[in-house]
């Protein structure tokens, strides 16, 4: 009989072991989920960096993004393997789907960005072509200017020579005319009989003047390289020397013809000079215009890359409009025809590309927006996965605990029954003997061992009595042996119970570890990510600082990011430290089961921290109303379990799924050395017909959800037996339920108050 409880314990242990393995698995899932969460945070940050990175650095960022998301995908695949429930599998599938969507969006973004980057690059190339063309035009113009100067000099020289010839020819013609006039006048004067000497002298003077003029013109013609004309003129001079009016007439005609030719040439040269000068002025204007255009294009290019960098669609559209204007300016300016079409084309293509980049930017911005939404979904998904797997671990822990309790109770019950049966088997014959002995002792006069010699039944009985009387001494030893055996069995039961209690405590601890591990995981994970990002940011910033590319705005952004990082690190690490502290305390209490004095308010807060995941999952908020500095001395482990059970009970039974609720823990001091703790929820309440039974073991309304119905029973037992207090429940359907625990808080809590009173 004594082996059965042991077997039960073994079965329970095996079940617990199996379940612990499952819980372990769930915790692994939680760890994976946490790692996915981190990877996704990093991927999101890489995406942000990709967007702001210079085109040359985008590839690296995109690769980092790809490797992060790939890791997250692998982890999600692994997580799918760990998933036990359809709910989990569904959540994992959903997260995978969202991740696929996210990476697809990133691919779209990358494609669009690359397209835009290429366009920007082509635009830059266009700008260079334009400036190159402008430079070529300028060089050509310089060469041309030098050429114009040569032409002008040459033409000017010719002009001077011709002017000289024209002047001299005109002078000669005038002299011939004068000479003929004088000759005519002299002929008339001669008839009047004037002085012949004067006439002679005058004619000689005129001839020599004419001769000199002819010689001057000959020299001028020779200087101009017109030897033929000079020779002709020499012939005319010879004729003139020979004398005769015919020679003079011939000279005049020759002069006039030459004058006609040279005069018109002179004017033509004038015209050419004027045109060349006009051209050189125009050419200069052209050069200026071309340079201005090139500069305008360069400026536009710079503004464009800035606007594109800032993803400022409005600014880009404004630039598109400006480039339209620039193109029409180009068409109207006197730009070198050699490059004008190309420039107009270049600006046109530039404009078209810019226009395309606007739609590219729009598309990118839309993708970015989608990605941000996906990112929120993703991280939320990862977080809820984390919660889900942690919750699963929690639930498994709870199940283990329940099984241990149920199993333990069955074991105890069965053990007690077995003990009773054993005891009865031993005591029944003993009682008969005892009755006989009593009877015998009551009636010794009946012959004592009367009828012992009778042959009838009585004789038999007497004989039997006598036999017993005789035997009684002999039997006493055997009796003592049996009692000893029963004692041993009971002792064994007690030992089993202790083992069971210890096992239950360990299960509870497991739950605690899982809870705390999860709680710590989140802040440490966030802190780790933040630290990585801060480090990366700092490295990048250092590089920029080295590269002297720092802008004030960048510096401000950096310090803001650093402060934000520091704040995140502080908040999360403080939280992790708090958690570790709480855990230390709570676990110590649960394991030791010792009675100690503690600050109730602080302790309550620590307890609630360890319950965080459960509360969050159920959207339950808990607030504590306890005066600061209230110290109690009691069993914190037991009290912790009581409060935990009450809160979990409220969370599980008090509300419909997902509607959330509020629990208020109020601590009162009803009398010296006593503490009353009220746990009040604002949930559905308990119907009156059920309220009588809620502390009964195995009473539950939620067995279909895996509840055992032992939670409040355990609470009752712990309050009454361990804490030596009372528990009351009041409830109003629709208004909520209030449990009131009244426990002794020892004199320690009272003593200072009394001292205070005394001090007054």
């Amino acid at each position: 009989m004594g082996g059965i409880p042991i077997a039960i314990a073994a079965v329970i242990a095996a079940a617990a072991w199996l379940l612990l393995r499952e819980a372990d698995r769930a915790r692994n899932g939680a760890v994976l989920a946490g790692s996915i969460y981190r990877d996704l945070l990093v991927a999101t940050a890489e995406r942000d960096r990709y967007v702001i990175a210079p085109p040359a650095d985008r590839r690296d960022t995109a690769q980092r993004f790809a490797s992060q998301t790939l890791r997250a995908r692998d982890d999600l695949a692994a997580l799918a393997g760990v998933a036990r429930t359809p709910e989990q599998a569904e959540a994992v599938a959903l997260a995978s789907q969202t991740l696929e969507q996210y990476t697809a969006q990133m691919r779209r973004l990358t494609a669009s960005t690359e397209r835009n980057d290429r366009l920007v690059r082509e635009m830059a190339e266009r700008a260079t072509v334009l400036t190159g063309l402008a430079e070529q035009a300028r060089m050509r113009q310089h060469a041309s200017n030098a050429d114009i100067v040569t032409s002008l000099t040459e033409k000017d020289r010719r002009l001077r020579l011709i002017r000289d010839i024209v002047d001299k020819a005109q002078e000669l013609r005038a002299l011939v005319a004068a000479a003929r006039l004088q000759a005519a006048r002299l002929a008339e004067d001669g008839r009047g009989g004037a002085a012949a000497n004067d006439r002679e002298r005058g004619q000689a003077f005129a001839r020599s003047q004419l001769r000199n003029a002819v010689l001057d013109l000959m020299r001028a013609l020779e200087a101009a390289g017109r030897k033929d004309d000079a020779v002709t003129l020499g012939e005319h001079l010879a004729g003139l020397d020979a004398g005769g009016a015919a020679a003079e007439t011939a000279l005049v005609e020759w002069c006039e013809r030459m004058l006609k030719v040279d005069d018109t040439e002179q004017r033509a040269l004038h015209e050419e000079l004027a045109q060349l000068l006009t051209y050189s002025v125009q050419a200069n204007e052209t050069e200026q215009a071309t340079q201005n255009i090139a500069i305008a294009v360069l400026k536009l290019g710079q503004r464009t890359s800035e606007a594109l960098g800032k993803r400022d669609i409005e600014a880009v559209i404004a630039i598109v409009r400006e480039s339209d204007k620039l193109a029409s300016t180009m068409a109207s300016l006197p730009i070198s025809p050699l490059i004008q079409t190309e420039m107009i084309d270049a600006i046109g293509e530039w404009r078209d590309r810019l226009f395309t980049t606007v739609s590219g930017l729009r598309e990118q911005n839309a993708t970015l927006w989608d990605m941000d939404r996906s990112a929120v979904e993703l991280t939320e998904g990862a977080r809820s996965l984390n919660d889900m797997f942690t919750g699963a671990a929690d639930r498994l822990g709870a199940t283990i605990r329940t099984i241990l309790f149920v199993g333990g109770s069955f074991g105890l019950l069965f053990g007690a029954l077995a003990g009773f049966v054993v005891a009865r088997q031993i005591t029944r014959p003993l009682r008969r003997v005892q009755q006989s002995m009593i009877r015998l002792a009551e009636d010794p006069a009946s012959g004592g061992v009367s009828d012992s010699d009778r042959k009838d039944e009585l004789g038999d009985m007497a004989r039997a009595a006598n036999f017993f009387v005789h035997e009684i001494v002999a039997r006493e030893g055997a009796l003592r042996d049996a009692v000893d055996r029963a004692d041993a069995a009971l002792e064994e039961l007690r030992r089993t119970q202790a083992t069971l209690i210890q096992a239950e405590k360990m299960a509870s601890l497991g739950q605690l570890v899982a809870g705390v591990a999860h709680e710590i995981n989140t802040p440490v994970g966030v802190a780790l990510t933040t630290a990585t990002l801060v480090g990366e940011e700092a490295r990048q910033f250092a590089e920029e600082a080295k590269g002297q590319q720092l802008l004030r705005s960048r510096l401000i952004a950096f310090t803001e990011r650093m402060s934000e990082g520091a704040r995140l690190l502080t908040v999360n690490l403080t939280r992790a430290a708090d958690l570790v502290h709480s855990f230390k305390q709570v676990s110590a209490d649960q394991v030791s089961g010792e009675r100690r004095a503690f600050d109730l308010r602080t302790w309550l807060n620590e307890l609630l921290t360890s319950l965080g995941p459960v509360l969050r999952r159920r959207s339950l908020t808990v607030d504590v109303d306890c005066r600061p500095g209230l110290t109690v001395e009691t069993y914190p482990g037991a009290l912790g379990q009581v409060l935990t059970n009450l809160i979990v009970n409220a969370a599980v039974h008090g509300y419909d799924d997902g509607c959330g609720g509020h629990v208020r823990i109020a601590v009162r001091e009803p009398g010296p050395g006593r503490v009353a703790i009220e746990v009040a929820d604002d949930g559905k309440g308990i119907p009156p017909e059920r309220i009588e039974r809620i502390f009964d073991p195995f009473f539950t309304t939620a067995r279909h959800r895996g509840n055992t119905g032992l939670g409040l029973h355990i609470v009752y037992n712990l309050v009454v037996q361990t804490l030596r207090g009372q528990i009351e429940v009041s409830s109003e359907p629709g208004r909520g339920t209030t449990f009131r625990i009244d426990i002794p808080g020892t004199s320690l809590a009272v003593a200072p108050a009394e001292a205070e009173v005394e001090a007054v």
Partner: protein
Amino acid sequence: MIDAMAGARRRVAGVAALAVMLLAASAPAVAKTLVFCSEGNPEALNPQIVTTTTGMNAGRPMFNNLVEFAKGTTTVEPALAESWTVSPDGVEYVFHLRAGVKFHSNAVFQPTRTMNADDVVFSLMRQWKEDHPFHNISGYSFDFFRDLGMPELLKSIEKVDDRTVRITLTRPEAPFLANLAMPFNVVLSAEYAERLLTIGRPDMLDTQPIGTGPFVFQGFQKDVTVRYRAFDDYWGGRQAIDTLVFSITPNPAVRLTKLKAGECHVMAFPNPADVPKIAEDPNLTLLSQEGLNVGYLAMNTSRPPFDDVRVRRAVSMAIDKAAIVAAVYQGAGTVAKNPIPPTLWSYNDAISDVRFDRAQAQRAMAEAGYPSGFDADLWYMPVSRPYNPNGKRIAEMIQSDLAPLGIRLRLETREWSEYRRELQAGTPALALYGWTGDNGDPDNFLNVLLGCTSARTGGNNIARWCDPTYDDLVNRAKRLPDRPAREALYRQAQEIFHDQAPWVPLAHSVVFMATRKGVKGFVIDPLGRHPFDGVDIVE
């Protein structure tokens, strides 16, 4: 301060990054642009409505004809018509059109079909029929079409099917095929015309031309440029150059300066004085050819004083043509005595030129009743022409020559396209002008420039000379199929011309063109055309 510096540094870094990017990426291929330094503004861009070679040359890159002259010759060859047949009586021409010939497109027009018979019919009908919706747009008249007597010559133009056109003449016409090869017989898009009617802009047919030619019209800025782009779908294959620009540069000295500087690749008509320098320049190529041209002084015979043949003869005798040719043409021209160049068949060399004789001229003036002369206006071209390198200088020399007759000349000029209009309107009393043959047929000179048909406002008969005997001769000659018979009539006509002296023929010139050394495939053309198809730049 720090911010400003950081900003500057960032900019510098940005520019540097840009530069690096540019070095890394291969720059887009630079477009091949051929710039032609042309001599003047085209009066229009549609060859149907122009009469100057400047206008024709500006229109030429965009269009094709049914038949065209082979480059550099006057040989007719197939173009938009792949083949043709002529009826034995010489009045019915059937043209078989090339398939798959595409038209250009522009901002308002995208062709939906290839060239077909409708386009050919439209292009001729538009010029022919006065009630055609495109006949009376934007105030243009189709002078060439009329000067050649096309309205009377044509009997019908029919579309036989999409790719066959039948043209019936009222009489046999020897130069008909050559006339079809002339610029005014380009083929326009009927579909484009339809489109323009729908949008209410029929004027665009002439200002925004759509053709089938190797280059697409890009823009015309008066006094500055005409721009074209290579037509990717040209039936004759895409051109090697991407962009063609006519850079309008009236002064030959400036043209030469631009050519030497590389601002243009081809220049029209260099100053004869500069020819030796061009020939010496290692970077330049000089092209020359005896031109099929004549430069002349036209005397307006429609009103006094030049309605009197004695006055015209006096002027002819007083002008020292030898001095002009020597000074202005500088050896690149010969003195003209007939209205057609000596290289053209039927040139009457038996005619002896009017002798330069001032005294005789003075006597003739006195006989005509102008012993003390008169005042008159002499118009000269503002631009150099192949037949006249410097109109102004010639005008000044004529002014000087006529002064002894008491003829006081007032020199006038206008911007080139306006000049032509004024001349064709009969405004000047005396005008310098000239002609480059379009088709290598004497009719193209003797009839177009001196026939009665052309002696009207808008016509090419600047002298407004209409001599019935002469006109009968050239019109008869046109209808005769065999050359010797025609030649006889033309020689007779030249005698009448010599006697009646409506012009003073001045010179036949050698045409010069200059290109940069890298220009390949540019051919100087006896008809004064500047064909840019097949031209490339290798530098």
